């Protein structure tokens, strides 16, 4: 187990480093003129500058070093949680992010709750209910959820629950009431994905021999579903849940824009719009870190629930 743990942690760190490097290459090497891009994002009109001013500006932003030196410089600073200054707002990227991170974390946490309740609930009912029309309807429902664009769902919820029924606020970041609609919007597509997977694996589990044994012992459908089927079917769903958490964090970009919530997602949208490279780079690193940490936890949980995984890892 400790060796498995060490291996997984090392792998997670490697992925994190690779994600940072890939985004650094895309942002700093891919543009035909990355220096002009970053300087004009900072509000400087490059064509109006004298060569001497240009040189000073480049030196100010650290853009005059060779790209490899810049890379190691940025990587070293990122390791110390220093992401430099934002090009469009005159504050450090770190303070921008620590300002906005709590509201996004709260939003995604509630959204994951929605995913668990909806995803589990639909899959549970779709395989438990015996009335055929309801079964078919519940099995088909997720396909709709996966296809609906989040901005459409968000606007529809605002129209119905904020403007027509006036139950909940349409926008804003204050209080739990402003969290309800965005969390549902954010959680809907992932919960549909979870429901799809879990329905399939529950259906498969119901065909296993140990279910036949349980039925032969005279256990009720409910007991079998809760104590036997769900436990075994939830293992693959756990892996998917790790992936879904990462996507939920990223889709906050769209949802926070729809609901005008002051969070990391909205910051990302503004940073891309202003081509604020340091902010984009930092947000990618944070999202990747969340993604990696959650998946690491899922993997460890998985190996606790199913010890064969860690043993197979050692044998390989």
């Amino acid at each position, binding site marked *: 187990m400790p060796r498995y743990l060490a291996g997984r942690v090392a792998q997670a760190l490697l*992925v994190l480093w*690779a*994600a940072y490097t*890939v*985004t650094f290459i*895309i*942002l700093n090497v*891919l*543009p035909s003129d*990355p220096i002009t*891009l970053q300087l004009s994002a900072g509000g400087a009109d490059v064509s109006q500058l004298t060569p001497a001013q240009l040189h000073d500006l480049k030196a100010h932003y650290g853009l005059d070093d060779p790209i490899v030196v810049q890379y190691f410089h940025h990587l070293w600073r990122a390791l110390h949680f220093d992401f430099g200054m934002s090009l469009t707002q005159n504050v450090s990227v770190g303070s921008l992010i620590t300002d906005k991170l709590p509201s996004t974390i709260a939003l995604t946490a509630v959204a994951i709750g929605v995913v668990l309740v909806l995803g589990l609930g639909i899959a549970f009912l779709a395989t438990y209910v015996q009335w055929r029309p309801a079964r078919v309807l519940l099995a088909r429902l997720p*396909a*709709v959820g*996966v*296809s*609906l*664009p*989040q*901005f*459409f769902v968000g*606007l*529809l919820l*605002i*129209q119905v629950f904020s*403007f027509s029924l006036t139950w909940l606020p349409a926008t804003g970041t204050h209080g739990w009431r402003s969290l309800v609609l965005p969390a549902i919007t954010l959680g809907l597509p992932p919960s549909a994905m979870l429901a799809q997977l879990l329905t399939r694996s529950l259906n498969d589990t119901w065909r296993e021999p140990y279910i036949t044994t349980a039925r032969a012992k005279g256990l009720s459908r409910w007991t079998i579903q809760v104590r036997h089927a769900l436990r075994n079917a939830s293992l693959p769903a756990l892996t998917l849940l790790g992936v879904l958490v*990462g*996507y939920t*964090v*990223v*889709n906050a*970009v*769209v949802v926070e*824009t*729809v609901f005008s919530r002051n969070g990391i997602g909205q910051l*990302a*949208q503004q*940073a*891309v*719009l202003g*081509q604020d*490279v340091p902010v*984009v780079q930092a*947000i*990618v690193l944070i*999202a*990747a870190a969340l*993604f*990696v940490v959650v998946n690491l936890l899922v993997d460890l949980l998985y190996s606790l629930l199913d010890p064969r995984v860690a043993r197979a890892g050692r044998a390989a």
Partner: protein
Amino acid sequence: MPDKILSPKSDRGPDLVAAPEQRAAEARAAAPAAGAPPITPVAVATDLAAAGGAAASTVTAAPAPEPAPAPAVGDAGVDGENRRRRDDLFAAAGPLLRRPGFVLAALFVAFVIVSGLLPSLFTSYKPSATSPTDKLKGPSLDHLFGTDELGRDLFSRVLHGSTLTIKATGGAVLIAIVAGLAIGVVAGFFGGWVDSVLMRIIDILLAIPMLLMALVIVTALGFGLLPIAIAVGVTITPTFARTTRAEVLRVKEQPYVEAARTGGASWGRVLARHILPNSWGPVSVLAVLDFGTAVLTISSLSFLGFGTPPPAAEWGTLISNGRNFLITSPWLSLLPGLFVGLVVFSLNHIARTLEEMQR
């Protein structure tokens, strides 16, 4: 003789144990020499090369409830080949046409594509023609989707938005297919360290969530149709590469590949005529599925404001503009939103049906 017949619900079960000669007789027209079987995207034909690669015969994968009518034997030649292709296509289309959901979805997608390429056939309004007296009118027979704040017909604007979205989606999927096939074939075919390096890169790209990756690329390339298409294309490439690699690995071990090699065909020829055509099935289903994902991501990106500059407007831009009038004129954002949802749902439904048929 080991082989794999992709034939769900087939009543050809006994074929698997029948003698090769018998099977060859039952198989449809016998192609001369070791020609590659005809492949249609819907009906994946797997060829059963007789030992030594003397004659390759085909069994269609059409999941027809009854065996397809046996075609005339002995018309091997260009004419017979063409007729057989046509028969394959009909045999595959039959069960599909019997699914009303599939037909509806396919018709809707066809409508969106045709109306996107030729919007003037379906609407007499110009997307940029303003009419101050008609502003913010609700949906009616005159204006199917109502009018916007400048009195422009929203239905016409949605159809003209389709043109842009179709271009971007087509471009993105094309990038993904070309790059994904290339990476997947190289990795699967050469194996060894080439495979390891390419797959580790793919793993890293998969570890970065799709929308995030697209945002990074858009930041680097700027805004507009082409950057969005490239961004989405790059983000869906890894799944293509993975699927292609898995298929190439599977097909590479098939007996007919070995047979063709023994028969003296070069690796290049085997790759082009046997491995690629037989790997194409699952990859093409993924392509349809990724059309849906691409449409969704492209409209998300244009909703966020990274699309073509006004007055041209993609679906996402229209929805984002309509947001400002959500209280008074909800149709301005909700109808285009519903339209996008229907397109994605139809594409996903088509992909899922095709996937079921292939199993």
